[in-house]
């Protein structure tokens, strides 16, 4: 792929991110403001003077549109403002604290899912329509069908409570505490990737150039590794975008079940407490990550797929 084409394409795509982000921020902002109740509603009623002071401090007394534009201006400087619930914390600090944890769990889960998913997908494709294929695909379907929040308690019950092999939850950056959350989070993604890989691998194995490679007398494993693997992985690459979004969503549940202090648990807490700035911050932060990852996946896909030439697009 030529350099200029890729640059031009990247520039267009990056510009295209701006309206997406604007929509994201706008929807999130107005949605959360429509919620009945505010961040300072609690059991004890605040004296009106204090309430007024609080509202003024956080600019809640201004007209909504003014608050909206104020927030937009703030976002441009990458400042998500102070959290309403976690006193003395800014949203940036909370994200900086929670995200590394979520990223570790999510990143490891993605890695695991990619390695295991593609391997068993290829295994099934090479033994298409055998008992092995059917059982792998049956298990994969089960992986798609069992929700994370069912797998997690069952794993805790069996591996932590009954067997006592692994801790049931908590977080201290140790491998033992990472195993269960990472595996739970990865399972459905493994299943999807296995199904995708199997399907595309079967298709690739029936193509002419693979037949040619075989006819030349190339050993089977070399045919797979040198010729079939790359095109067969293309659908998996383009699935990485949605998979990331899925992992992030899944992490909300996983972090809750395993009591992991990641960004997902902050989000749920923030939503329940109407911590406007925190919820907005997390939504925008994750939105940007998903959008950027989709963008990277696109470039990766183009780089791997010889059929795509951005410079030749009419």
């Amino acid at each position, binding site marked *: 792929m030529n350099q200029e084409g890729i640059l031009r394409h990247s520039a267009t795509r990056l510009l295209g991110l701006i309206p997406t982000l604007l929509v994201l921020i706008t929807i999130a902002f107005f949605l959360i403001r429509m919620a009945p109740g505010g961040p300072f509603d609690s059991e004890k009623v605040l004296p009106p003077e204090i309430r007024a002071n609080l509202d003024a401090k956080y600019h809640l007394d201004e007209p909504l549109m003014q608050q909206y534009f104020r927030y937009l201006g703030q976002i441009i400087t990458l400042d998500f403002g102070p959290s309403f619930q976690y006193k003395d914390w800014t949203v940036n600090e909370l994200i900086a604290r929670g995200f590394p944890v979520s990223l570790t769990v999510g990143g490891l889960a993605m890695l695991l899912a990619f390695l295991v998913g593609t391997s068993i997908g290829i295994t099934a494709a090479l033994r298409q329509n055998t008992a092995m294929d059917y059982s792998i695909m049956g298990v994969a379907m089960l992986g798609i069908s069992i929700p994370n929040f069912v797998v*997690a*308690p069952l794993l805790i019950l069996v591996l932590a409570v009954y067997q006592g092999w692994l801790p049931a939850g908590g977080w201290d950056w140790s491998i033992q505490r990472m195993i269960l959350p990472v595996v739970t989070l990865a399972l459905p993604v493994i299943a999807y990737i296995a199904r995708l890989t199997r399907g595309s691998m079967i298709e690739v194995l029936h193509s002419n150039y693979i037949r040619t490679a075989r006819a030349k007398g190339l050993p089977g494993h070399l045919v797979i590794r040198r010729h079939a693997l790359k095109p067969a992985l293309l659908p998996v690459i383009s699935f990485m975008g949605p998979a990331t979004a899925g992992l992030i*969503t899944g992490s909300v549940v996983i972090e809750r079940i395993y009591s992991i202090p990641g960004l997902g648990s902050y989000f749920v807490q923030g939503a329940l407490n109407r911590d406007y700035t925190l919820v907005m911050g997390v939504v925008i932060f994750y939105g940007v990550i998903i959008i950027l990852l989709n963008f990277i996946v696109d470039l990766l896909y183009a780089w791997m797929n010889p059929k795509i030439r951005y410079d030749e697009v009419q």
Partner: protein
Amino acid sequence: MNSPADMQIADPQVAKTELEDPFAAAMAGQDVRGRSLWVDAWHRLLKNKAAVISGIIMFIMLLLVIVGPLLSPWEGDFTDWDNTASPPNFETGHWFGTDAVGRDILVRTLEGGRISLLVGLVATLVSLAIGVTYGAVAGYYGGFTDRIMMRMVDIIYALPFMFFVILLMVVFGRHIVLIFVAIGAVNWLDMARIVRGQTLGLKNTEFVEAAVACGVDHKAIIRRHIIPNLLGVVMVYVTLTIPQVILVESFLSFLGLGVQEPMSSWGALVNDGAQDMESAPWTLVFPATFLTVTLYCFNYIGDGMRDALDPKDRA
């Protein structure tokens, strides 16, 4: 997308099934036109054992969920103080055991199933209505309208939609109707894209051109050629959307953001069960099994329908 060369060598399974298909028998029948698409698809579906078995299980599940609570001696919210947190026991009549306050798990599971399945169905219909209308309008008008409408879909697509469902639930309270709408309102994007693509493609197919050339009027073309071809894909998508929606609802209920007591759903029951699982694992295992079996079956039925109705699009 793949090159045309790749497309031709799809799964050999398809070619084989098509050869075995009683084309000749169908041709011998009187109403050749009516049979071709649906009867063919139906035959292919019936050959898919996984889909057929799943269909039967889902039918039984539906019956159980609808009729079961009526036959049970227990009410869903009845608290049997003599048997709190008791394991499954046929003598007391609590076949699946009871939860911490003595409610019968079997009845709770079946009643939760009603809500879960209802949400699955209604929210899917909401997304179907929005998606088909949106997609058909975009595909039909084409040009500038289409570009703007699909650009909007692209934008919304990039948003972390689960967070929006959570936001919607928080903002508008946890009423069951809102669950339908909230889930449906974020789930229509795929449907819109697919319907738009189909409509665009169908407008220019040879058989539509042929029909035009034969002098068939537009209404008949839409009814006989466009809609049936659209319906197949839409039906497949509906079947695949239902389990997704059930999953989203359970997810919300699990977080405590879905249906509220005394109503229940499988997700809410799994949440309750997960909290008591060390002392009373049956409160977790039974609802979790029902939920999983349902999702499993729907996915198999959807897969089977996709293979049957839409042999070209298989991966």
